[in-house]
């Protein structure tokens, strides 16, 4: 990728062929919370005078990673742990720092990450407060003592993930049946069709619906902090972009991320409004 730098003899950036007229192309997953972060990036950059193009709601990682690699998308809010597992399924890294470091290694040429935020949105095993109280649960390991049959709810692919049912058994000796509850996992947990659920830690319903996130002493899950995935050109060449985005990452706290999600689901605010207000509140606009 060195050939793509600005010391091109003709002074033209022709080899990348993407991001026409120098706009920064920001992508997001088809996940409202991710989209809010992407929108915050976008508005922050626009505030700094950058030209921005939005390519939101792209479903799968393997759909958008190639586009980042090709340069068709140049900036994408990501999560360290999940992203690392995408490139290195066998990784042993668990703590936020280790994961961030490992991620730097694992990323393919041409992609890099900016500073990670303290806000995280990672997988967890969660139970209802009532169930936790009844079975005195605080950690995943405690599940081994529960006498009734455990049914784990989560997205269909959890069945095959290293931290899925197999991981539970191997690491904690907990046996579960699996139910692919998908997008309604939290409802299923509340309704009782499952009693353990794979929930993202930034999900506001952990608070509103009285859920308990079980501790993970054996680090079954990777830490997964919000991190901007960028194409190297952007990071290198337009340092202003890095500055702006790093400022956002610094201001985004775990509680802040949940608050953003609450604004979206409970207050039903539109994504641009949420982003705008957050930037104002954090003095970034």
């Amino acid at each position: 990728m060195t050939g793509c730098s600005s010391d091109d003899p003709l002074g033209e950036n022709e080899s990348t062929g993407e991001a026409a007229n120098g706009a920064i192309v920001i992508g997001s997953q088809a996940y409202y919370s991710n989209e809010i972060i992407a929108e915050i990036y976008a508005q922050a950059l626009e505030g700094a005078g950058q030209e921005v193009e939005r390519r939101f709601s792209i479903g799968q990682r393997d759909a958008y990673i190639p586009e980042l690699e090709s340069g068709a998308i140049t900036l994408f809010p990501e999560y360290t742990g999940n992203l690392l597992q995408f490139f290195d399924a066998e990784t042993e890294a668990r703590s936020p720092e280790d994961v961030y470091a490992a991620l730097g290694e694992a990323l393919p040429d041409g992609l890099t990450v900016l500073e990670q935020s303290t806000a995280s949105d990672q997988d967890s095993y969660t139970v209802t407060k009532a169930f936790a109280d009844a079975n005195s649960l605080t950690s995943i390991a405690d599940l081994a003592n529960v006498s009734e049959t455990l049914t784990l709810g989560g997205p269909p692919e959890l069945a095959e993930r290293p931290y899925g049912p197999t991981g539970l058994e191997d690491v904690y000796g907990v046996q579960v049946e699996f139910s692919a509850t998908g997008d309604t996992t939290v409802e299923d947990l509340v309704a009782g069709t499952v009693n353990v659920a794979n929930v993202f830690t930034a999900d506001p319903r952990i608070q509103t619906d009285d859920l308990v996130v079980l501790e993970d002493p054996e680090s079954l899950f990777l830490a997964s902090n919000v991190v901007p995935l960028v194409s190297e050109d952007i990071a290198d060449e337009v340092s202003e972009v890095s500055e702006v985005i790093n400022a956002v990452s610094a201001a985004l706290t775990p509680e802040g991320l949940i608050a953003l999600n609450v604004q979206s689901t409970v207050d039903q605010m539109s994504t641009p409004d949420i982003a705008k207000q957050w930037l104002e509140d954090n003095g970034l606009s």
Partner: protein
Amino acid sequence: MNLLSEAFAWLTDPEQWTGPNALQHLLFQQLYFTAIAVGIAAVIAVPLGWAIGHTGKGREVAVAFAGAARAVPSFGLLVLLVLLFGVLHKPEAAVVTFVILAIPPLLAGAYSGFEAIDRRTVDAARAVGMTEAQVLWRVEVPLGLPLLVGGLRSAVLQVVATVTIAAYVNLGGLGLPIITGLSLRRYEVVLGGAVLVAVLALVLDALLALAQRAAVPHGVLAAQGHAPRRRTES
């Protein structure tokens, strides 16, 4: 076509045919939802379609309704109904979605089957002294059957392909390997699931095609086969 052979390998792996999500189990779920939904839709649409065909009334309403039902995106409707009914009633939500999908072709098959009958035949049936019920059961129903089965055929085809989305709301079926495969980037699994759905659809379609042929009354079949003394002109 590397992918295809991988998909084939996945399909033929005995592991896929054991356990709680064994393919035969998913296949059965797919069929089960199809049968229930088409069955309920038929109970609603066929008598309605027959009533429309027999009386000649209400056709406009039926056409408008069928058009609107066809315009409703199944995926969106399923999501909406799951939100409305709650997670404990996902199967009901799914069944309602598929019933709405199956009604338009069944309705159209039922009434157009009657409409396609030569008016003079029905008129003659009345003129020889058949009661309305006799006209319905002895003349209209048997003669309208081929088009009704045609409608059933396209209802089944559409529903069986669409039941795939049931996996989104944890109802299993052959959509499960498809969406799991998508998340895991295992395209041979996606393709394997898709192939199973397509094969299932084709088998059902072939069976119903036979049924459709069997539904054509003998005398009408004779007319199609021989075309005796038919003018070449018209």
